[in-house]
């Protein structure tokens, strides 16, 4: 077949050469199509040649310049390359269990020939906190990240702890329009210096992919693609869109909007909600699309702008570019995927959150900005949203298990391709890549690991899929492929920021605080809505918001604080003694196994921003969904029946992460805070004095 094609190609080439040879040069022009092809090919080659020549000719001078600046990068290095594979939430107990079953041969090899340890995590054991500590080598008191959310002491309302996005500094008011005169301002809230900055400064090249809390990307001498905390085009942490002909008007509790589909003859019309109008008009931008169902084939044709594609029921589209037109020549570029859920009797289409288009990023998501473009051109569009796996859609039963997993592994495969490209490009230096799939899949499928999880009671035990074991096998295979690409002079670290435990029971600490007299509601109220809507702050001494933090309503700090600073220690001690060991009367189990005073836990310039107490939930327990959102209920305990059935926001001592290495590590109780100083030491760099971690001793 191949020979036949080659033969046809040669024949065609001969015809073309014959025809072009006959005509005079003026007649040989073959139209704009071919003309463009030829011109742009030569242009590409010309540019490439200039770039290459520049790089080639200037390389000795740049090398000399580095040497003269005492940047003989690898002079004192013990290793030439470090590869860090981060698997968010990989649990040491599960890894050990599956290794012993023989399903993880590559991790077994690392355990046998190198190192396997539990990796102590941060207080609290939450991804943005732990990965910030991983990259900076300091405790949260020095990097300022304590949770996904932080609270505004003036309003008691939450804000994203990692980054702040505001409008442009200057605008021009023109009638009803407000024209932006500049780009949005993005301020990173994480402090501390990631260790790759020190490496880059010393001339050691680094490729950093999807490490959490790297948005906005900071300048350094290397390439970086931001991970967790990158917003979607709406500026949220992920808002899916569920378009349906069903008349249900109810709002989703988390992370999504319901949009009606309207019938117009044989076609159906709906829209994707986008960002707010940047020209100041009081409306959101929208992209409209058309659905033409074909029920005989169980498929639908979807038309969005100039894109037309056909989906079978239960199938995802590839990433589709969408352009939210603002007017005045402005537009916002995003990408999203469509999932055809149903076409008969009703029509239902799920649309992922609109991700920032990596090929045309409206906000910087990489350093340099061209790195995200490079990856997009090389591998095609990919998920850029920090929390790209849509756990909310599964929680809200918009997606089923299979659709969610398909989404997870599609994103994961994209990141694998990025990792292997980074490995190829980083033959010396640091290559660090974090995979989120482990975290998301364990959150959503832990219910099938347990016999009596409330979220899986309606699924017969013999029909429960082995999703998590399959997940670990896939990660093991990835590790095996990486191991095949590295030599003995490369250090491989497989790390996770925390482990995992069951989340079967919810604890509403605000309800407990209310029932025990620390939190007061307004007159005649027995509950409070979201974000302390009905809380009487003038009589409230403590409250909780987010996943693990408890705050005193401190006078002089909170706007309506009533606890005097001199009594804060006593109030904290009182709370600590009452909450520690809190028992769930329905199960008889301990719901809280530790309460940690932040004065004793954190040191550093940002320790004052920390919660006053960190709650360590026991195995099977976590802050309730309502409590996280600042809601006060009458019930302290309740079953967790959501698909989000595993968690790690518990007592940090229960959920250490993993540390695997291809080299022997001497440290018996390594911690995630030690990774940064260890890498600096191995590359022969001085460890800054403010770093809290201690470098490990490696047999290299």
């Amino acid at each position, binding site marked *: 077949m191949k020979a036949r094609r080659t033969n046809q190609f040669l024949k*065609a*080439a001969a*015809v*073309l050469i014959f*025809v*072009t040879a*006959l*005509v*005079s040069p*003026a*007649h*040989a*022009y*073959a*139209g*704009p*199509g*071919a*003309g*463009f*092809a*030829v*011109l*742009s*090919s030569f242009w*590409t*080659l010309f*540019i*490439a*040649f200039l*770039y*290459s020549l*520049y*790089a*080639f000719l200037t*390389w000795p001078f*740049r090398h000399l310049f580095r040497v003269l600046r005492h940047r003989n990068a690898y002079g004192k290095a013990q290793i030439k390359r470090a590869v860090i594979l981060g698997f968010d939430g990989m649990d040491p107990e599960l890894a050990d269990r599956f290794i012993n079953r023989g399903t993880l041969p590559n991790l077994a090899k690392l355990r046998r020939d190198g190192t396997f340890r539990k990796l102590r995590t941060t207080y609290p054991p939450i991804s943005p906190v732990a990965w910030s500590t991983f990259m900076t080598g300091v405790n949260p008191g020095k990097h300022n990240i304590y949770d996904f959310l932080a609270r505004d002491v003036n309003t008691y309302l939450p804000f994203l702890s990692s980054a702040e996005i505001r409008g442009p500094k200057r605008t021009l008011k023109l009638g009803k329009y407000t024209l932006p005169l500049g780009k949005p301002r993005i301020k990173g809230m994480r402090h501390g210096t990631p260790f790759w900055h020190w490496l880059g400064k010393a001339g050691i*090249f680094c490729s950093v992919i999807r490490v959490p809390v790297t948005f906005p990307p900071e300048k350094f001498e290397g*390439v970086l693609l931001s991970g967790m905390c990158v917003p979607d085009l709406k500026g949220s942490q992920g808002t899916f869109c569920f378009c349906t002909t069903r008349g249900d008007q109810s709002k989703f509790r988390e992370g999504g909007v319901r949009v009606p589909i309207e019938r117009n003859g044989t076609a159906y019309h709906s829209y994707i909600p986008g960002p707010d109008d940047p020209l100041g008009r009081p409306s959101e931008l929208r992209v409209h699309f058309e659905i033409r169902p074909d029920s005989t084939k169980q498929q639908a044709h979807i038309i969005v702008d*100039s894109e037309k594609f056909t989906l079978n029921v239960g199938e995802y589209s590839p990433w589709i570019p969408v352009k939210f037109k603002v007017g005045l020549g402005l537009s916002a570029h995003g990408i999203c995927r469509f999932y055809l859920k149903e076409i008969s009797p009703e029509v239902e289409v799920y649309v992922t959150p609109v991700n920032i288009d990596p090929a045309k990023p409206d906000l910087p998501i990489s350093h*340099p900005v*061209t*790195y995200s*473009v*490079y*990856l*997009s*051109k*090389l591998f*095609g569009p990919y998920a850029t949203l920090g929390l790209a796996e849509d756990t909310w859609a599964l929680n809200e039963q918009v997606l089923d298990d299979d659709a969610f997993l398909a989404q997870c592994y599609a994103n994961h495969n994209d990141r694998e391709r990025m990792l292997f490209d980074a490995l190829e*490009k980083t*033959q*010396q230096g640091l290559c660090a890549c974090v995979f989120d799939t482990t975290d998301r899949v364990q959150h959503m499928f832990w219910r099938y690991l347990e016999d009596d999880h409330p979220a899986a009671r309606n699924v017969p035990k013999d029909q429960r899929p082995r999703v998590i074991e399959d997940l670990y096998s896939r990660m093991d295979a990835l590790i095996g492929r990486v191991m095949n690409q590295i030599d003995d002079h490369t250090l491989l670290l497989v790390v996770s920021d925390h482990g995992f435990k069951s989340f079967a029971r919810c604890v509403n600490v605000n309800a407990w605080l209310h029932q025990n007299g620390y939190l007061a509601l307004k007159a005649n109220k027995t509950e409070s809505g979201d974000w302390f809507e009905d809380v009487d702050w003038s009589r409230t001494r403590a409250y909780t918001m987010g996943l693990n933090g408890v705050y005193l309503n401190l006078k002089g700090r909170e706007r309506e604080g009533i606890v005097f600073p001199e009594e804060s220690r006593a109030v904290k001690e009182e709370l600590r003694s009452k909450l520690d060991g809190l028992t769930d009367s329905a199960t008889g189990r301990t719901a809280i196994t530790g309460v940690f005073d932040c004065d004793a836990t954190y040191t550093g310039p940002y320790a004052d921003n920390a919660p006053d107490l960190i709650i360590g939930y026991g195995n099977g327990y976590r802050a309730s969904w309502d409590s996280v959102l600042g809601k006060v209920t009458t019930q302290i305990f309740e079953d967790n029946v959501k698909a989000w059935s595993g968690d790690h926001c518990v007592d940090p001592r229960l959920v250490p992460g993993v540390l695997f290495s291809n080299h022997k590590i001497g440290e018996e109780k390594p911690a995630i805070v030690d990774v940064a100083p260890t890498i600096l030491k191995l590359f022969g760099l001085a460890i800054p004095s403010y770093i809290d971690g201690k470098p490990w001793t490696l047999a290299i």
Partner: protein
Amino acid sequence: MVVLLSVIIGLLMVVIFRYTSDQTAIRLAKDHLKAHLLAVRLFQDQLPVVLNSYARIIAGTGKYLRLAFKPLLFIILPLTLVIVELDRYLGATPLQTGQAFLVTAHAADADSLNNLSLQLPPQMSTTAPPVHIPADNEVVWRVVAATDGNYDIGIAAAGQTFSKRTVVSSRLARLSPVRLRGQFWKRIFISAEPALSDPGPVTSIALNYPSRNIYFAWMEWNWIWLFFVLSLAAGFLFKTILGIEI
């Protein structure tokens, strides 16, 4: 007229390119080329990466050209014929009354050279004796026309007369600068007249029509260059409007 033709042909060719090419593959090939170009810039301190990217750029360019080859096959033949036909109208201007021009007859061999004679219609006359160039087997006459019209100039040799169409006009006209014997492909591209009889004593009769220059954008253009630039510009415009990958 050239502008209009260029825009129409630019649009047509881009549309043909769209339907005869693998648009997805072309987009991918172009994206990969851009990625490797960016790699050269992003990883410029790593010489092996730069050289490797350069090699991939060369390979990618080859792939891109190969993908453009199939639509080229569909386009090149009709477009070439269109350009050839247009060149007959736009490549040269007809002869002007009172303006001397040269008639060149090429003999089959040196012996026939002295037997060639020119037969002109009454509206034309020679302005000088013929010049014989034995080294090239050619005889050249200098002729002038008195009035506009389409004429047949005759070259007599060995009892036969071979005609050559001549256009004297101030309007746009289809011109044939040469009449040939045999040479099928050359006749297709250059001549617009039937072949001279073969065998015969005359192999070609040529006229030196003045080449046509078009004034556009403050410049004198040969029509083919203007067509080249304008059709590319039109193609670029339409490919963007129609979302076509080239």
